[in-house]
């Protein structure tokens, strides 16, 4: 279990869908975004393997909190979003205001 509650994290800026068939449960709208670990949720078999009937190792799962107005440039200040994200999609991040990581758009 790599991340404690309160840890600032970034969702990996990666789009495996562009490289071939896969099943990813981390929504597109979160890729590259900064959030905060709300709490760990336990470990569950990796859906990316389950979807293709491959042996699926258990991966730690976290509830990660995001600030609403930064998500889509809309939404009310103070509103939040909570999403279940698997550990291999999380990186440690500097505490931030939730802007997407800089870089070329996928």
């Amino acid at each position, binding site marked *: 279990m790599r991340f404690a509650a309160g840890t600032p994290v970034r969702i990996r800026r990666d789009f495996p869908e562009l490289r071939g068939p896969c099943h990813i*449960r*981390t*929504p597109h*709208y979160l890729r590259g975004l900064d959030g905060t670990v709300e709490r760990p*949720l*336990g470990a*569950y078999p990796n*859906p990316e393997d389950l979807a293709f009937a491959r042996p699926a190792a258990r991966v730690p*799962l976290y509830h990660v*909190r995001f600030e*609403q107005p930064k*998500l*889509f440039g*809309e*939404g*009310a200040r*103070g*509103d*939040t*979003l*909570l*999403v*279940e*994200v*698997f550990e291999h999609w999380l990186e440690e991040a500097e505490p931030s205001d939730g802007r997407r990581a800089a870089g070329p758009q996928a």
Partner: protein
Amino acid sequence: MAAPPGPESLALLDRFVTALKAKGLVTEEEIETQIARTDRASPEIGARMVARAWTDPDYRALLLGDGSAAAERMGVSMAGMPPLGVLEDSEGLHHLVVCTLCSCYPRAVLGYPPHWYKSAAYRARAVRDPRGVLAEWGTVLPQGTELRVVDSTADYRWMVLPVRPAGTEDWDEARLAAIVTRDTLVGVALPRAG
């Protein structure tokens, strides 16, 4: 409401189930157990769980700490079911549940999801304009309330534990359960005493 399945669909289902049984992947008993479990599930179960949590602090703690165990305590078999997570509303915090990727829904304690929950419109708009979505149900949150949208992307199935409305202080569990509608357990509405 969706139309009932037509004869071609039923014939296809029959051939499919026969093939699954022939391959030893499923038994008739397993199918009937699952049908019975599905038929028993309804929002009334979730409503009773909330009403009990409102009146019994120990059950409330169980519901928030281990939703699946709380469901089992109400007679719901959660064996083989995904874990149930319960989102605690409070003064200043209200939750709204959605599954943007598909339509994950706490069926064991709420029954079938309504068609609007599964719609592309709800799934897209709930994360993007949740207050606009609530307004379409006539739901306006009290001033200063944080709206927290919960996107069910993995193993958990989520249900809201709403705030008990004022004016219900001397109500029994049955009367309380009656105001905990399906919509209040998803979070598009708030329970009302009046």
